[in-house]
């Protein structure tokens, strides 16, 4: 897997006819944003619901892309921090009646702070040992959420999480309808993508890529690799926690099911299938894979079987994920496709 990551990742500073590639990328980006802004005009509630789910899963996927795609560590604990964010938001909303935006921020902070004591021992491990450790975190989170009944109400879960209320002063607006949810989640997901891009383009982003490429070399050039890995682990947890908060306020119910492997797997599939180590990877992945999963609800018995075959097909046909496919299509439209390709 490591080799695949190395050969496909990018710092998102394309070299080839730079101005044209940038123009293509910005045009594709603008077209995507315009399509999303117009979506509620054409799509019914069911499809908007699916798109809201896709954008919610985009947040933990961005976190995973940061830690896996840019720092080279496979963490299966994104589902844990997603669930933690969901529970933190739900508990705040139910017990203290705090507004949505406060819960949203607290959920991110709780996930990030819990990641600190978990990351300190876990990041002493490398490669498969680290992966196993993060898998252990998933199992522990499931058990705690089921058995800490006083706090979580066990398998019954927490219900009655308030709908997001937004307001300034006396003016308060409760988000209830699907298009309203859609625009709220779209705005927050766009902010998360902007934060992600700022992170990977910062000098710290360069250090992350250095750690992924060769940790010992990075260390020998003065990069405190362990500190960076801990901070990236915490930041990836913040992204997941924020996603969990959106989920709690969207579904209004949180139960130990949020910690089940399905959520962690979905986040992993979004990143690997979309294109690991690429900015558009998680974005494309979240829409495609949530859409595929939802579309297959027409055959409930065969849903997961077909989903599995779709994934197998994608792995064989597009081992580097869907993002390069979209990039090539955009370049072809702009008439760039023939020149020598730059792997960055």
């Amino acid at each position, binding site marked *: 897997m490591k080799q695949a990551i*190395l*050969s496909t*990742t*990018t*710092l998102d500073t394309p*070299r080839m006819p730079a101005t044209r590639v940038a123009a293509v990328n910005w045009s594709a980006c603008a077209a995507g944003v315009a399509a999303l802004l117009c979506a509620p005009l054409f799509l019914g509630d069911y499809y908007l619901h699916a798109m809201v789910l896709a954008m919610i899963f985009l947040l933990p996927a961005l976190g995973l892309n940061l830690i896996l795609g840019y720092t080279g560590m496979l963490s299966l604990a994104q589902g844990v921090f997603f669930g933690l964010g969901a529970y933190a938001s739900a508990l705040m909303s139910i017990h203290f009646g705090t507004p949505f935006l406060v819960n949203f921020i607290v959920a991110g902070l709780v996930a990030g702070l819990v990641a600190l004591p978990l990351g300190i021992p876990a990041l002493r491990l490398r490669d498969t040992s680290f992966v196993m450790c993060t898998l252990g975190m998933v199992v522990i989170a499931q058990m705690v959420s089921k058995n800490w009944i006083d706090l979580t109400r066990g398998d019954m879960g927490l219900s009655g999480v308030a709908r997001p209320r937004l307001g300034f002063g006396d003016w308060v607006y409760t988000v209830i309808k699907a298009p309203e949810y859609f625009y709220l989640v779209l705005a927050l997901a766009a902010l998360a993508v902007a934060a992600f891009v*700022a*992170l990977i*383009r*910062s*000098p*710290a982003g*360069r*250090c992350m*890529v*250095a750690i992924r*490429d*060769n940790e*010992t*070399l*990075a*260390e*020998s*050039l*003065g*990069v*405190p*690799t362990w*500190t*960076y890995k801990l*901070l990236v682990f915490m930041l990836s947890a913040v992204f997941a926690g924020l996603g969990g908060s959106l989920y709690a306020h969207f579904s209004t119910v949180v139960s130990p099911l949020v910690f089940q492997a399905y959520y962690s797997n979905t986040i992993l599939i979004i990143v690997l299938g979309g294109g690991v180590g690429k900015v558009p990877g998680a974005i494309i992945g979240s829409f495609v894979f949530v859409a595929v999963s939802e579309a297959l609800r027409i055959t409930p018995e065969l849903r997961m079987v077909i989903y599995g075959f779709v994934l197998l097909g994608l792995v064989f046909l597009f081992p580097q994920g869907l993002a390069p496919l979209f990039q090539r299509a955009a370049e072809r439209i702009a008439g760039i496709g023939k020149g020598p390709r*730059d*792997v*960055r």
Partner: protein
Amino acid sequence: MSAESMLRIEGLRKNYGAVAALQGVDIEVRRGEVMGLIGPNGSGKSTLFDCCTGLQRSDAGRVLLKGVDITGWPMNRIAREGRFLRSFQKTVVFPTLDSEENLVLAGQMSRFPNVLSTFWVGPSARKRIQALRERAKELIEVTGLARVAHLPAGHMSGGQQKLLQFASMLMPEPELILLDEPLAGINPVLIEKVIQCIEHANKELGVTFVVIEHNTDVLMNLSHRVVVLHQGAKLADATPEEVVRNPEVIEAYLGG
């Protein structure tokens, strides 16, 4: 402690199980010199580098850099605070980054006050990175890598990667560099280029070097002083002319 001492190694010991890789080695490197380090394979040269630069922990002994005891410091701190860098026997670069990005990364930690400041993307950070880019471009010209500078470093030839690795070590304005076989596996033209780069850095930038190299002809011309290791212990410490005439060195390493 001599005022001229750059690196002092005192009684350094390192065992790998029952094998004693270093048996209490004492070496002093003086500021501004190029010191050659030779010895047969398995004599402990690379282990000495590893223990001095924090890649491995020694079992006993001390390492003093400019009089400061750096024994037990993590590798990144030695590089950052000590301006003490090293290359590796097997050439390593960041394969997915191009030359400029490799070089900017190499100099980055010396330009930012702490880790958190590297997460900032404001004008001050951009200014620092721009200064590093200017320096990187100069080094790309000096090392003759301009023609391949746009390639990801993993796509460059072994010799080009070696030059890039050398240029990377000059980015943080180092005071001491340990080079582990800088000439291994590269063609004569590039050998000349690497030697020029070492001499330039030593004379113009005042960088002190310790060089492990099996190409003894080149090393003897390049070095001011040569230390010979044999079976984890120091066999000789003298000028190149004296070392090549030393019968023990001839028997253990140079051959008749």
